[in-house]
């Protein structure tokens, strides 16, 4: 019985070490270095083509006129703002459960681009709202929960920065990242739960209510901005790892080790 328990414990430990092997910073950097620039360049090219397609080739919409072209920026930004927090929540869970050494770095790297795309989503939505709804802003479920997401990002950036500066446990920020994920289904279902000026989802699992003339440039823009997001996350991870490594090296030099 004891032997079986020890064997199980040993297997779990070796599995953990094996998983941590993938989190080896040197191994991560070997993968991240050749990927960062291509992700950014291909993402910028695809997003540029999609935005030009949306601006100059897509037709004006019957009811919304030319303002419909804002969709090619607004929707990818919303998707990345929400997806970014899901990545923070997933990394936080991995950190809390498996103590994966890179999980905290991933979450911190995602926070800034997530906040930027949430801000872009709010700004472009507000600009779109003026001609479409006759108002820049309304305190309804969708807009307010998206604004709450932006504040959650600010809170996470401040908290994780303070935790890293003061040398406190990164699990504090991980708990915040996990709890903040409660807001994601609220954002998603807000247009169904409450009366809103915002339209309900146009794209659901395997179905789309968007005409192909708008759908294809929208999908291309989403792919392009997602690649940019991936490239920025890798760049931020490399920067955070380099800062940690430089600090460790300087500390070792200072202690004469």
């Amino acid at each position, binding site marked *: 019985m004891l032997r079986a328990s020890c064997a199980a414990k040993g297997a779990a430990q070796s599995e953990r070490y094996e998983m941590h092997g993938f989190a080896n910073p040197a191994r991560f950097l070997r993968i991240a270095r050749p990927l960062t620039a291509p992700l950014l360049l291909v993402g910028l090219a695809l997003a540029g083509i999609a935005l030009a397609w949306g601006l100059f080739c897509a037709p004006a919409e019957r009811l919304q006129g*030319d303002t419909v072209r804002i969709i090619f920026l607004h929707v990818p930004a919303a998707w990345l703002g929400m997806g970014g927090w899901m990545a923070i929540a997933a990394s936080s869970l991995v950190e809390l459960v498996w103590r994966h050494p890179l999980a905290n770095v991933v979450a911190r790297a995602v926070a800034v681009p997530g906040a930027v795309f949430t801000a872009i989503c709010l700004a472009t939505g507000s600009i779109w709202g003026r001609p479409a709804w006759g108002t820049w802003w309304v305190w309804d479920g969708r807009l307010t929960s998206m604004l709450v997401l932006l504040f959650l990002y600010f809170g996470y950036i401040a908290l994780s920065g303070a935790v890293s500066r003061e040398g406190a446990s990164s699990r504090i920020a991980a708990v915040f990242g996990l709890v903040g994920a409660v807001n994601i289904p609220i954002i998603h279902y807000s247009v169904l739960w409450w009366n809103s000026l915002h339209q309900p989802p146009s794209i659901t699992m395997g179905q789309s209510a968007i005409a192909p003339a708008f759908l294809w440039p929208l999908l291309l823009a989403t792919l392009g901005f997602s690649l940019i997001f991936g490239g920025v996350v890798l*760049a931020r991870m490399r920067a955070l790892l380099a800062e940690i*490594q430089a600090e460790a090296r300087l500390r070792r030099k200072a202690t004469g080790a």
Partner: protein
Amino acid sequence: MREALDHWTFVTAAYAVGVIGTLALVAWSWLAMRRAERKRDAARGEGKPRR
């Protein structure tokens, strides 16, 4: 009463916010990464930190 709004003004403003925000994010992340890696290499004694 219906307001006569020029749609292209709003489209241009939204694209300016989105494109400038994205390019600023990419440039800032790239430069911060290069700066941090130079600093690390200097700490290792592989190069000099540049300002």
